[in-house]
């Protein structure tokens, strides 16, 4: 399991779970996690769009930029309307640093190695975000509109995951 995924999963565990008092994320923290999660994928997508060798990987990267920017636009508009200020928390911080780590690592790669590393990370990342939506973010969202937005965008992330897996398979066959 990649470092990013472990860090994110354990940060969620801290925020959402076993510790004694009520540590489920509140709406302000959920908003911050969602905006950060989208931004991390936008940043990786920008790098891949310029650097990927395979055309389909480039197109996928562009789609990540487009879709996650769109979701963030909706999320930001909603929290503004609800007068909720996104609140940084251990989960959003670990997402951010994990994302920066991934980008750093990708910058040192090129060609097929870059493409594989980028896509492998996208598969893991989208799976992790979907799990977080299901286990922590959606169940704990108190505001109905925020919850509805999370539910509404979940299927797009599933589509991203499926697409990334298809590309991953294709890239896996390319070398052989």
């Amino acid at each position, binding site marked *: 399991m990649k470092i990013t995924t472990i860090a994110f999963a354990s940060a969620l565990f801290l925020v959402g779970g076993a510790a004694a008092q009520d540590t489920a994320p509140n709406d302000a923290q959920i908003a911050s996690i969602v905006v950060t999660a989208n931004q991390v994928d936008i940043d990786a997508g920008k790098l891949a769009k310029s650097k990927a060798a395979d055309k389909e990987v480039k197109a996928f990267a562009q789609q990540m930029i487009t879709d996650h920017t*769109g*979701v963030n636009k909706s999320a930001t508009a909603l929290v503004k309307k609800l007068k909720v200020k996104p609140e940084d928390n251990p989960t959003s911080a670990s997402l951010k640093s994990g994302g920066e780590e991934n980008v750093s690592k990708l910058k040192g790669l090129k060609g097929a190695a870059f493409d594989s590393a980028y896509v492998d990370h996208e598969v893991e990342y989208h799976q992790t975000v979907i799990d977080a939506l299901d286990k922590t973010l959606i169940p704990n969202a108190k505001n109905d509109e925020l919850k509805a937005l999370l539910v*509404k965008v979940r299927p*797009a992330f599933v*589509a991203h995951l499926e*697409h990334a897996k298809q590309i991953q398979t294709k890239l896996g066959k390319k070398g052989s």
Partner: protein
Amino acid sequence: MLFSGSGFAAATRATTHTVVIEGTQFTPGDLTVKRGDAVVWINKDPFPHTATASAAGFDSKNIAPGKSWKYRPRKAGVFPYSCTLHTTMKGTLHVE
């Protein structure tokens, strides 16, 4: 020639049907229309989608958030379609 087409009858009774694209899904997923009716796909998601027939047929190309695309089917048949950007999204257009 007079009897060849749907022209007259369809023109006087054409209906407009709406397919809503929201939550990365076509609703209704299954739609039956008559030749000459209009089908309007409206994108209520915050990112683009397409409505693209799996065989040759129709292709909306990118429908931006908040925008719609209108299509008037001329040929009867069953037309499975999907979003080329999110291939988990599938629908079927039945044209009578």
